[in-house]
């Protein structure tokens, strides 16, 4: 299990990945320190 969330920053690719995986997308609008 990863220690951190592996965030994508490419929305369109993530949508395709979500469709293929049959999972919902978790879209996070953030201002947290990177």
């Amino acid at each position: 299990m990863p220690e951190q969330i592996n965030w994508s920053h490419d929305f369109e690719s993530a949508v395709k990945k979500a469709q293929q995986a049959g999972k919902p997308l978790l879209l996070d609008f953030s201002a947290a320190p990177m």
Partner: protein
Amino acid sequence: MYPDPEIVRLVAERFVPVRVHVKEDGSEFKRLGAMFDAQWTPTTLLIDSPATERHRIEGFLPKEDFAAQLELGLAKAAFGRGAFDEAQRTFERVLERYPKTDAGPEAQYWAGVSRYKATGDPSALGETARRFSERYADSTWAKKASVWRS
């Protein structure tokens, strides 16, 4: 709350995570913010493909509350797909795992609705109203369920 192991596991197992940062991804933040009406951070959306919002979390939440909201969102996604048995099970799981969070009374309400939608049995709604007399009686969801009392 994101570095928490329980949150990391839940997100990794159940979601495809995508983040747009107000500074680092400025143009995407504006584009997607306009698309999904997100004007504040943190705002976390659970989206079913292709672009149907099922649940919205606005503002910071402690770990347990955030995990509860994520699972509540999964239950709402199942409900939105018409998978009412799965929705009921997932709402009940929220109740079992996170009974002291704000997600609890909402999950109790929607578990009853899901059961009714799955079975067509209106007694599911009456039983849900009675559950609210025992738990979460002061919640907004208890008021909403009160119309089902016979």
